[in-house]
């Protein structure tokens, strides 16, 4: 579903992502972890077409994100770290705009909008202008818009920012169900407990390089630290790579 093929992204002389090769199959929830400035957001931006790789290819459902951006986007849902909405549209109008952009037929769009509004408990303020929403409400609306067209791939950049505990649980349950139904989720997060709870595989990036790729058990095996949780393993791994780089 998602393929990074020897992808490198440079910002001037600085290498943000270095020779990243990664393949994520259908129905997997993948969590990308790493300290600030590790290259996670750059990786996600390349995946959703906001950035082009300096070298290498990024493919979603077989479509190259540079050569076929529209087809690649057609199969992708994206929840950015900061919600991008139209202040002068209501929540319902925004979802209609997204449905129209993805070419959904009217009857189908109506059904899906009702479904997502119900899933994210948006009905109460669906007809208020988005400028009056709180951060959590905006984030829930963005989630609803990203899932509206039932994408094959869902890309999440720090998805739980601004969500209250109830909404967080709601999103987690929904992601689990969608992944079970075959959706691929690519998630960047600093919330290690969430990654530990939900991810099938994790990738740990540091200074543009993928330091680890695998399941939590594989990480424990690799580091020979069987009793540690993900947080302890993560800190161990990133601190050792930091000391190596010195």
């Amino acid at each position, binding site marked *: 579903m998602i393929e990074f093929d020897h992808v490198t992204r*440079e910002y001037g002389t600085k290498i943000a992502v270095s020779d990243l090769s990664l393949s994520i199959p259908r129905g997997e929830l993948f969590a990308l972890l790493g300290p600030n400035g590790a290259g996670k957001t750059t990786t996600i931006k390349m995946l959703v077409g906001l*950035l082009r790789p300096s070298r290498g290819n990024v493919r979603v459902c077989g479509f190259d994100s540079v050569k076929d951006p529209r087809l690649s986007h057609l199969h992708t849902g994206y929840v950015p770290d900061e919600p991008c909405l139209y202040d002068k549209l209501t929540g319902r109008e925004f979802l209609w705009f997204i449905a129209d952009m993805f070419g*959904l037929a009217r009857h*189908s769009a109506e059904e899906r909008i009702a479904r997502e509004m119900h899933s994210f408990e948006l009905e109460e303020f669906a007809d208020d202008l988005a400028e009056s929403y709180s951060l959590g409400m905006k984030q829930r609306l963005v989630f609803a818009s990203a899932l509206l067209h039932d994408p094959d791939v869902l890309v999440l950049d720090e998805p739980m920012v601004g969500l209250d505990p109830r909404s967080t649980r709601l999103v987690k349950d929904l992601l689990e169900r969608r992944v079970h139904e075959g959706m691929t989720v690519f998630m960047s997060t600093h919330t290690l407990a969430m990654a530990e709870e939900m991810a099938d595989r994790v990738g740990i990036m540091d200074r543009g390089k993928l330091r680890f790729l695998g399941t939590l058990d594989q990480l424990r095996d690799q580091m020979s630290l069987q009793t540690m949780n993900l947080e302890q393993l993560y800190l161990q791994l990133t601190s050792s790579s930091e000391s190596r780089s010195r």
Partner: protein
Amino acid sequence: MNPLVSSRDAVFDPVRLLNAEQESRTFLRLRIRMAFTTLHTMLHTARLRLTLVVILSCFFWGALYGLFSEAFTFLDSLRTDIVSLLLNTFFSSLMVMLMFSSGIILYSSLYCSREARLLVTLPARAEMIVSHMFQEAIWFSSWGFMLLGSPMLVAYGVVTGSPWTYYAMLPPFMLSFVFIPSMLGNIACLMLVAWLPKIRLHAVSTILVLACAGGLWLGWSTMSATTSDRLSSAWFQEMFGRLSITEQRILPSWWLSTGLLEVARPAQTQSELFASLGEAAKFLALLVANGLFLQLITGWTASHLYRLGYSQLACEQPLRGRRRPMGWFDQFISMSGTATGRPIRLLLVKDLRLFRRDVTQWSQFAIFFGLLALYFANVRSFSYNATYSSMIGFLNVAVIGLILSTFTTRFIYPMISLEGRRFWILGLLPVNRDQIVWSKFIFSSVGSLVPCTLLVLLSDLTLGIPPMFIAIHETCCVILCFGLSGIAVGLGARMPDLRESSPSKIAAGFGGTLSLVISALFIMLVVIIAAVPSHLFTATQASQSPLVVRGVLGWAGSGTGIVCSMVVVVAIGLFATLWPMILGLKAFRTLEP
């Protein structure tokens, strides 16, 4: 039923790519919906502002119409054929301005807006995204052209007795003309960002400086080299002879002015009317055809360069380790003075740093005051007698005040609201709330005093005004600086908007509009009260008689009258400064963030 519902058939189908027409309709529905909501919101929450905008626009339009009518009647009396040159000069200048303004607006909306960040991740064609943003850019960049151009062209039609066909052809001519420079600005913006992302600012600045330098050279050589009497027929001929560069037939401005002059020609018979209409239609067709051709090129450029440019721009290495060229100045302000005044000085240094690093603020300040300085430096090009010089000096004080009032409303008024949002920082510091408000007042009044008093001095010296009137003008200017700062800071503290993070939106709200209106009234009051006695005094002096007017006006025009008027002006200034500040301080002390 939702207004964004599309008219597609109700068939359950999976996601699919839209064709160009469907995408265009989707964006159009979005645009209409947002325009409707914005208008609806304005009608319900910003009636005062909307009413003011409409009234002032009508007033501005009417004043321009009157001015242009007089100008065209005067030119008609000279019996010289210079209208074509005048229109060519006007439209070619506007063409350059439109190109820059639409390019800059598009840059901001295509590459820096949150909307673009959303649209780039949707399965939309790049050319459709650009076209969608272009609609907004063309609106923002061309409304000034419409507001300035329409009274001029209508006045020309009325003065020359043009047939109805002229007025019917005005809108299509103006719209099709606006399209061409805007499209050129659009194409230049796309190319610059995609191919030269790192030097885009330098490239635009260089082109802008070259264009300004070219314009200044042309203006200077035109105004300075003429030897004939000002405003005479020969002077106009000589001056416009130097502007014939704007009459190049390859320029769309020439197509526009020639087409309009053709259709404006008074017709004696029906066949003459159709003949001139036919000629004008050819020029309109030329404008439309070129506009459409440029649209095709824009579409092609956008499809190839927009996503590339978006990515290129995002990949620029952020600047780190900036130099601090004004660090010594900040240090000087922070360290000088008493210990008790140090918190205010530290707040001042913070605001100074924010001002220096906000390009929007200082660039607008520099552009407007720079243009004023240019105008004041050239105001002597026309000969005035002593009475008019004094009046023009007062009008210049009023202009400085009006421009300053837009800055105090736009940048100073929102400052307290923005501080309110950061109350968790200031609330924990050993600074009392009064000091925060006073620091804004000092920042605004001292910051505006220096450029404004210098501008008044430049204007008065150029006009050759006697020292006594220079002192009066400078006093008015100082009073305006303090008063306008007091109004903006005081009302800003009295009516803060703690929910809004955008300064422009805070300034555009009720409080900001009220501040602008009160500021305008204050300026008018100060200038009229100071100007009338001075004008009467100068008129009396110029007529060589003891008093040309008697009674109250006679007394007002005497030395005592001038002194009394200045006392009233100072009293008004004190009231305008202190009353809003007292209200603001009182409200800010009890503000709950």
